[in-house]
């Protein structure tokens, strides 16, 4: 039994639909700018991948906006596109329609604003808790679209969406659902999260006056990741049922692997990354040599990009140099719990178009990053099998394998 992708939706700093996102990606138009949503003048990192024109009023009522955090609003926007794209799911019983969503920080914007009020001895808005809770977005997607099956939320920091999509795959394989709406959402371009990651020295601080060049995975001069926000949603179902209802099939989701470093809480570990990729490849019942493309985790931190490169080289051997690799984060920044959803959509679009979007700002590669990362210009290559990597705090590593649709 194969599980396929039949719907996609995205909202990101470079586009509020899959078409916009992909057009910007293949032409190398990044979305990193100076932070506009709050006064960041007191921060060392003053840049981010914000969604500049997001207007929840365009698709939510005033009451719905009042009851939802921004991460939920982004998730709802992407879910609407994905479910519209997937077409008619009414042939499935509502109790067999599941949701599996990832978010690293959940409704942190609400948490932050309510905490400030509380510390000022002001009353706290009644929807503080239901807006903040990590499963808020999954619950709202279910409520808006009548998805009455299992409703799961996965919070594993930067690998949240990869694990959520993997859990969706498992739900379908286990026969616990007929279709799953899955992906990730994050909206934490906020004073507290920026300050928190600054304190870890994880963010870029040297490009505040040149934000377009700040997110530069694998390049010399990279000095940390750039915070981003967004949501990516996929609709997954069994291949035979998708064919029966005449759905467009974008890709097969062929494998998922997870592995924990069980070591440092934030430092990357090569063994865990290799183990996640290996497990996903084995789950897909392929060999490493069958892989054509990797959507790398590649956050633009000095250490992380080197470790991922070493992990790829160790696992794939000589084949590593034949792989096409890119970094979606060069365009949108690090969208934390949504990042693997955006990476998965980029992977699926590559399978469908034969275009590998460029890794921008890669004019001079770090000598320790010596693979083919599609620097600055899109590559054109037939890709039949692509990996999407996601490595999160907590030593949480996850990899997904996508392959071309059966008849392509």
């Amino acid at each position: 039994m194969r599980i396929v992708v039949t719907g996609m939706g995205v909202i990101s700093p470079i586009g509020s639909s899959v078409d916009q996102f992909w057009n910007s990606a293949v032409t190398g138009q990044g979305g990193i700018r100076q932070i506009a949503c709050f006064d960041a003048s007191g921060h060392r990192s003053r840049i981010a991948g914000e969604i500049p024109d997001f207007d929840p009023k365009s698709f939510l009522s005033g009451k719905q906006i009042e009851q939802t955090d921004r991460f939920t609003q982004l998730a709802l926007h992407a879910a609407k596109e994905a479910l519209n794209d997937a077409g008619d799911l009414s042939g499935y019983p509502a109790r067999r329609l599941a949701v599996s969503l990832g978010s690293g920080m959940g409704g942190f914007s609400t948490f932050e604003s309510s905490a400030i009020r509380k510390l000022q001895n002001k009353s706290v808005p009644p929807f503080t808790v239901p807006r903040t809770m990590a499963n808020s977005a999954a619950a709202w997607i279910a409520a808006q679209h009548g998805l009455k099956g299992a409703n799961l939320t996965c919070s594993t920091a930067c690998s949240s969406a990869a694990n959520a999509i993997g859990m969706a795959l498992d739900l379908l394989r286990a026969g616990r659902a007929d279709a799953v709406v899955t992906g990730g959402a994050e909206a934490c371009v906020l004073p507290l999260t920026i300050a928190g990651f600054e304190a870890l020295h994880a963010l870029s601080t040297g490009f505040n006056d040149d934000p377009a060049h700040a997110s530069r995975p694998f390049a010399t001069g990279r000095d940390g990741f750039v915070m981003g926000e967004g949501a990516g949603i996929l609709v997954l179902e069994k291949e035979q049922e998708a064919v029966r209802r005449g759905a467009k099939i974008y890709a097969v989701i062929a494998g998922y692997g997870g592995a924990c470093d069980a070591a440092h809480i934030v430092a990357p570990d090569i063994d865990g990354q290799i183990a996640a990729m290996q497990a996903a490849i084995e789950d897909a019942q392929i060999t490493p040599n069958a892989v054509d493309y990797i959507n790398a985790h590649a956050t633009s931190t000095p250490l992380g990009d080197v470790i991922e490169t070493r992990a790829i080289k160790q696992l794939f051997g000589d084949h590593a140099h034949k792989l096409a690799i890119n970094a979606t984060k060069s365009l949108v920044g690090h969208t934390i719990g949504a990042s693997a959803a955006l990476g998965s959509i980029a992977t699926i679009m590559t399978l469908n178009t034969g275009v590998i979007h460029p890794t921008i700002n890669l004019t001079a590669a770090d000598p320790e990053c010596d693979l083919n990362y599609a620097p600055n210009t899109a590559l054109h290559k037939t890709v039949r099998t692509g990996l999407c990597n996601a490595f999160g705090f907590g030593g949480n590593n996850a990899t997904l394998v996508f392959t071309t649709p059966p008849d392509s």
Partner: protein
Amino acid sequence: MSTDHIEEKIIAFIASKVENVDPATIDKSSDFETLGLDSMDRVQLLFDAEETFGVTFEDEEVKNFSCVGDIVDYISKNHSAEQPPEA
């Protein structure tokens, strides 16, 4: 601050929370049940009113509120100056 002004604001808050209700049909006698305000809508409405009018609703009083006029009259009796909207 006039009672009319308070009533106008409260009706605007209610209109943002209910669907298919013409604000022109809402007055002080309109009861929450008929307007379709659920319990969380009412909690949010009181929060909005507290923020706008600088009042604090006491739980003992609130549980007896059943119509728009109950809120408007309470605010008329207890408000300080209208609070500026938050940024």
